[in-house]
């Protein structure tokens, strides 16, 4: 599984990254977590608002900090 966190480094994006990592740790799954900070890269995903979470190429959330429950649902699928 490949998880990408899109965001230009604002506090919200950092919280999102932390939530994703904690959700991964709690569900015991292994995944590659990358940050995408280049704005053109972000735009390529069709995402207008950050932070956004992309899992295996699919955009899961846009413009908000997803909570742990949501993230667990996505990664356990």
């Amino acid at each position, binding site marked *: 599984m490949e998880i990408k966190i*899109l*965001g*230009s*480094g*604002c*506090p*919200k994006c950092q919280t999102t990254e932390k939530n994703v990592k904690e959700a991964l740790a709690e569900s015991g799954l292994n995944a590659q977590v990358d940050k995408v900070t*280049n*704005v*053109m890269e*972000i*735009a*390529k*995903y*069709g*995402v*207008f*608002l*950050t932070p*956004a979470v992309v899992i295996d190429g699919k*955009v899961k959330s*846009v*413009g*908000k900090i997803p909570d742990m429950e949501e993230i667990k649902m996505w990664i356990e699928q």
Partner: protein
Amino acid sequence: MKERIKLLIIVLIFLACYFIPWSNSTIRQSGLEAFMMLQEYAREHVLTCLIPAFFIAGAIAVFVSQASVLKYFGARAKKFLSYSVASVSGTVLAVCSCTVLPLFAGIYSRGAGIGPATAFLYSGPAINVLAIVLTARILGWQLGLARAIGAVLFAILTGLLMAFFFRKDDTARIAGQIYLPEEGDKGRTLTQEAFFMLTLVLILIFAAFAKPAEGSTGLWPIIFAVKWYITGGLLVVLGFMLKGWFVKDERVTWVQSTWGFMKQIFPLLGAGVLVAGFMLGRPGHSALIPEHYIQYLVGGNSLWANLFASVSGALMYFATLTEVPILQGLLGAGMGKGPALSLLLAGPALSLPNMLVIGSVMGVKKTATFCVIIVVMSTIAGMCYGAIVG
């Protein structure tokens, strides 16, 4: 924060402590001015102006549906709507430039194209609600109003000019899925939301209601005399609205987002006030930089003064809202009203670091054009404003 940067900061602070010549009387005076100015802000502006404004910014971030705004930036949106929405959406979408840049890149490369994208890029940081409120409060309502109107007009003009200059532009736009934040069912009518925002804005207006001049008659002193009763009444109304119309989650996110803005902006603003006080002093008091320098560079309303103000505004980086205390200091030290507006219009939208990112998105040529358009228009607006206000 990386450890190396922490070390660097500590070393810098140490060097400052070690070397600042506090025995020099000008330096002492400047240090005193810095804290006097900070105190003035703490006493006059924090409780009645900034705190309500933060709650409004928080409410806008949480309760205004971003998806409903963003859909006007899609590739198939009507051009007329894209421009009008882009020019005012800064009030709704952005408080700091870190949200503006990804949005700009998205609109530019996947959405409505260069015109609306640059219109938004300009309006985003320039007309957020906190900046306008604080400008009007501290620098006078004339300048606040001029800033708000100027920013909206500039956004549209910049967008149209960019679209005209680069009309043959063939940047391959990738048509594809655009992801917007989902629009949750909120269980409130638009009227209810409008009333809620109106109440917040009224609280801000009455709490920050300025003391009328001695001996003035009419409505103004009457309102001033009862302003705290009105504010109290409005707070009660607000309480009922919150209880009746919003669920607990929404209230929590509102407070969280308000708190987020405060954490982000207060330290920067405090530091900005200290620096402005140290360098320039409160209006009527001199500090480190002698007043005749300021008067020489940006005094009066000459072409040179306006141009200098807009170019330096374009290059300098102002953290959100810090442009206000800096301008307060400059105006107090003899800056003209026209150059002040030039700096306000060119300042927040552009900065050297910002230009680098914009350059990576749309290339050097377009970025240069964008900056030149803004500098030229700011200079002209400053001269007109200076001529009118005097």
